[in-house]
């Protein structure tokens, strides 16, 4: 077998391990939790679960399957090297005016100190980090997040409120932005992110798809380079939980500033209340190098939005696929939630 076949075979293996982890191990863990909770209550059940062998193996596998996906002998980082020169050449340029990089943008310490998702060097540490990130995202979770279906479903929720100018913040390699641009072809969509390597891939793919209403810009969510009142909608997908609370407050304030009066804020992120699912969610955050995820789950987001100037904040569960039970899911899943608010007409 050649190297490409070996790496594909290894990816298939890890995918099946993750599938077993998501289904069999998750269900066994949930059954054990429910048995313990019936005996001794939720808090004691969590303590006993944490100390038991099943949870320890569950945690170990979650951590190390992700590590192997990136960093093992057949991992994504090694796999990319054979194609480095060609890919770097393809990513260069502004892709028909679709990309504006800003070399003065500095990465905040909260962003650069930790390798998010166990991605070596993080999302801006290498010219091909966006390519690796996209490959990782496609292999993260058997099921709902392996295609654009999740993003298409989210984009559908923006019908009637998107308006003509949309800002998609923390757009990464553009999966959310290009989906929104396709859903609203008459709107102008601006995607922003800190990571130049991700934006370069996003712009390349927008150019290849000949998407004419989408532009990417390197920028910090806490210092958006736009005039006040520039947008009808500010959106994000899986950004909020990556920000520490102070940065989150700054981002909300900036979002309110760049929105026109009456403009809408809509984020797809994670929130969970159930003790068992919240326990796994916090564990996932730690194991996946996402240090602000647990704190975000605990914070009063509605209050933070109100303090930033928004009105009518809402948090609603988002079901990523038909048939999913968000209360007692049959497999491990992210606790998807839509967090929305409106800028008052007079502010």
């Amino acid at each position, binding site marked *: 077998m*050649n190297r490409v076949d070996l790496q594909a075979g290894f990816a298939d293996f890890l995918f099946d391990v993750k*599938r077993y982890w998501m289904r*069999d191990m998750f269900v066994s863990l949930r059954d054990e939790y429910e048995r313990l909770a019936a005996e001794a209550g939720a808090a004691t059940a969590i303590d006993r679960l944490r100390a038991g062998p099943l949870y320890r193996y569950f945690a170990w*596998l979650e*951590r190390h399957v992700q590590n*192997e996906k990136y960093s093992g002998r057949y991992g994504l980082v090694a796999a990319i090297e054979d194609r480095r020169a060609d890919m770097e050449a393809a990513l260069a340029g502004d892709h028909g005016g679709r990309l504006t990089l800003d070399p003065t943008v500095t990465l905040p310490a*909260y962003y650069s100190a930790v390798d998010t998702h166990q991605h070596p060097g993080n999302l801006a540490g290498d010219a091909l980090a966006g390519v690796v990130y996209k490959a990782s995202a496609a292999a993260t979770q058997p099921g709902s997040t392996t295609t654009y279906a999740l993003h298409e479903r989210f984009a559908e929720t923006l019908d009637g409120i998107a308006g003509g100018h949309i800002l998609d913040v923390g757009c990464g390699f553009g999966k959310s932005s290009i989906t929104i641009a396709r859903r609203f072809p008459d709107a102008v969509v601006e995607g922003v992110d800190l990571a130049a390597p991700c934006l370069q891939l996003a712009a390349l793919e927008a150019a290849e798809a000949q998407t004419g209403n989408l532009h990417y810009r390197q920028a910090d969510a806490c210092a958006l380079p736009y005039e006040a009142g520039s947008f009808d909608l500010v959106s994000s997908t899986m950004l909020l939980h990556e920000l520490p609370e102070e*940065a989150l407050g700054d981002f909300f304030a900036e979002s309110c500033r760049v929105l026109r009066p009456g403009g809408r804020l809509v984020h797809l992120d994670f929130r969970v209340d159930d003790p068992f699912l919240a326990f796994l969610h916090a564990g996932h955050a730690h194991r996946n190098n996402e240090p602000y995820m647990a704190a975000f789950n605990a914070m009063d987001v509605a209050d933070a939005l109100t303090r930033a100037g928004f009105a009518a904040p809402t948090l609603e569960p988002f079901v990523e696929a038909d048939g999913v039970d968000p209360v007692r899911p049959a497999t491990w899943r992210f606790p998807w939630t839509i967090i929305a608010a409106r800028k008052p007409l007079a502010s």
Partner: protein
Amino acid sequence: MDDIHAATAEQTFFDDPALDRMFGVIFRIASELQMTRLSVRRMEALLEHHGIALPAGASHLPAEADRLAADEDRRAYVENILSPLLGRPSSRSAA
């Protein structure tokens, strides 16, 4: 808000970190075994269809039916190596 630093040691999940490391060795051996199983499977398919050795660096892609069978075989392999982690008894023991 910037008060965060990278950890200097890998996370551990067992009381004895030696177990974490040993499980890592076991997992990588299982990974390599799967890669070997995949290679052997492809070699067998090639020999069955052509009766010739695989040229160095070449890729023999199995037919759809063989690919589906390989997918099923790999899932069964994963279930077999991981199922002991669930701690379920295969037979009834005395209390």
